[in-house]
């Protein structure tokens, strides 16, 4: 009976192993990959996906999904950037707006799903369209360049990395991520929000009948997802600076894919923040590593697709075996 939990830990463990194997493989094959700077850039590129993936873990565990985080991210970043660059708002206020917009869309999704009983997939598909449109509406269709690091408002870009005088980079972003993961793992496992998130994914009606304010906590899962999409927007802006309207579709799939590789069940009830965190790195490593072994960008997509299917298939086969014995 205790076996089950050991499968869980081993699932995360397997994914971690995969990350290590991939990393070793790329390092051996490509000398350029082993450089410190490459690793730093892998980390830098991963932050926004990591953040989205942490957030989307919650709706996924409730048995739902949030497809609006990708286009949402761009939308929030455009809105915040627009206010800073075009309206002269202080950077801190712009960042706040970015995150708050994420929360607002999260509330919107949550209310539709939890209070109005709309299917999550469809709801967030709609908000995906809506945020895609809204982003362009906010910025009047313009691409936005957030302030550069050396400009007055550029301080926020060193939230995720500090470059020292002798040009070495300190990835404080990664430290931040680890802290956030630890924090959210605590939220998921040891607070009411997390407990009820799992409970809703496990059996929503039973949770309701236990006197839990299911609608509120169900909404919260989407709010968390939206909040993290907002944070991801900050990370994206800090790393890439330039944001273009009409993009962002597809980010959510990387985040969700990472979460699923990391052991979140698409049926709900099962999943962990730290698993999602590790899972994202499988995707990020593929994305960054494959070009180093000489594959053109298009191959990455095929391989990422196959890896995703593979991860789920392994899980299915494993489950089948458990059922038989």
């Amino acid at each position, binding site marked *: *009976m205790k076996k*089950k*939990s050991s499968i869980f830990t081993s699932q995360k463990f397997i994914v971690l192993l995969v990350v290590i194997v991939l990393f070793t493989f790329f390092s051996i094959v490509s000398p350029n990959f082993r450089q410190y700077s490459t690793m730093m850039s892998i980390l830098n590129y991963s932050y926004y996906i990591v953040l989205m993936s942490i957030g989307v873990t919650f709706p996924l565990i409730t048995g739902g999904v949030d497809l609006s985080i990708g286009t949402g991210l761009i939308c929030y970043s455009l809105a915040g950037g627009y206010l800073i660059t075009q309206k002269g708002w202080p950077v801190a206020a712009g960042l706040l707006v970015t995150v708050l917009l994420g929360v607002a869309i999260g509330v919107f999704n949550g209310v539709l799903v939890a209070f109005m009983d709309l299917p999550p997939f469809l709801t967030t598909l709609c908000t995906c369209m809506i945020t895609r449109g809204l982003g362009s509406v906010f910025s009047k269709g313009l691409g936005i360049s957030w302030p550069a690091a050396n400009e007055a408002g550029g301080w926020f870009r060193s939230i995720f990395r500090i470059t020292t005088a002798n040009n070495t980079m300190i990835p404080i972003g990664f430290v931040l991520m680890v802290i956030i993961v630890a924090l959210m793992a*605590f939220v998921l496992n*040891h*607070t*009411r929000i997390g*407990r*009820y998130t*799992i*409970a809703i*994914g*496990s*059996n929503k*009606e*039973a*949770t*309701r*009948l*236990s*006197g*839990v304010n299911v609608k509120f906590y169900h909404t919260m899962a989407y709010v968390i997802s939206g909040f993290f999409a907002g944070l991801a927007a900050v990370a994206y802006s800090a790393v890439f600076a330039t944001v273009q309207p009409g993009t962002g579709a597809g980010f959510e799939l990387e985040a969700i894919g990472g979460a699923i590789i990391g052991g979140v069940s698409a049926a709900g*009830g*099962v999943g962990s923040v730290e698993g999602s965190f590790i899972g994202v790195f499988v995707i990020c490593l593929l994305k960054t590593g494959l070009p180093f072994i000489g594959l053109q960008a298009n191959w990455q997509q095929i391989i990422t697709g196959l890896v995703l299917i593979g991860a789920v298939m392994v899980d299915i086969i494993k489950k089948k075996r458990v059922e*038989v014995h």
Partner: protein
Amino acid sequence: MGDVILTMKDIDKSFPGVHALDHVNFEVKRGEVHALMGENGAGKSTLMKVLTGIYTKDSGTITYEGKETEFHNTREAQDAGVVIVHQELNMLGHLTVAQNIFIGREFKTGIRIDDKKMNDEAKKLFDRLHIDIDPTETMSNLTVGKQQMCEIAKAISHEAKVIIFDEPSAALTEAEIEELFKIIRDLRKQNLGIVYISHRMDEIKVITDRVTVMRDGTYVGTLITNECTKDDIINMMVGRVIYEDPKTESAVPENAPVVLKVEHLHAGKMVQDVSFELRKGEILGFSGLMGAGRTETARAIFGADPKESGDIYINGQKVTINNPQDAVKCGIGYLSEDRKRYGIVVQKTVAENSTMACLENYMSGLFINKKAEKKVAEEYVESLATKTPSVEQLVVNLSGGNQQKVVIAKWLINDCDILIFDEPTRGIDVGAKNEIYKLMSRLADEGKSIIMISSEMTEILRMSDRIVVMCEGRKTGEVKIEEATQEVIMNLATRDIN
């Protein structure tokens, strides 16, 4: 028995188009077990939902502990000490036992949930109930019976004064029911008011003090259990006496041909080396406790689950059945215990459900011959006396018994000679039950062979020509109806346990 703790008076509740509760009265005293009975749809569950705040009443009063009260949600009811142990198990499979028990009111230090304290408290509860369950176990790993115990522990942990059991025994084994009764008696001693909703007449007689009967949303009357007979209660429920005599001898001649022969069937833990024969025109009862492997055996024969080894012969011919398609080709039909999940397609019409298994016979070219389909469906609606306004009615709108008939029609239209009825009367009210029994007898008379899996001893004794008893995945005996008594069967069914 103490003073009255809860009184519901003149409760009225309407849904659009349905008058669900029509001025119903109900009361519970401290230290009594009060049965609430009635056919399906009589309004028992609705009444309890009104009590616990899931529904709001239209009129009437609820007096609890001497004060007029109205609970607005389950939470309020729980806090006041009125708790339901639900019919469907309301378990959160991915959480631990302790987490389940304290869901919605976790102990906390700051914002952190104190799981350790919850485990300790749960342990204390189980000790009080004399149950041995590890609070840190994941819920989905427990047996159904254990899960039910957790539900009860959860109810008690609310400092409950009134506990409502909504068909608690439906999923339990006989042994577990015994254990449940022990707990209920224990609770009665602790002066709790207990409402016990059940279909099983035997249990009512054993465990309850008073019986309140409802019919069609109205209050019929309240009796003291000791002073009435089963027939009294049934009469109140349906307004007619029901024939319930056990069969005394088999109607099947000794030399009737064997239509189905199963040899050394193995399929997982629940089906170990099962062999038996089924004769033409015979109703073969499958008895045993819940979890004895009867359903699993049926599903393995039908190809619904994979089997590891064993041979199946139909009319003497060895056949390979790897999936339900093969089984259907061999003329086997399977009526699942869980109609809604495994039997009917609720969003489809009666006609569409009826031809589900043999649609290929109702094709003209590429297209479905809807006329022929309708005709045959109508034919069977008539012969099975299915109550439906038309065959174009969606099955979801039919009552349980009629849904069951639609499933039977499906197999008859396919001309199945071997029918497996898995708990054919579960969740069906008494009147409809009788019709299903008659139908089964008629089918057997017409030469169909039936395997009937049932957990109700009376049903087994009344219907079967022969009885196979299973226990823990093994066949433990085969009894001719002439020799069958409750004791004999129970003995076989529990042989391995003790």
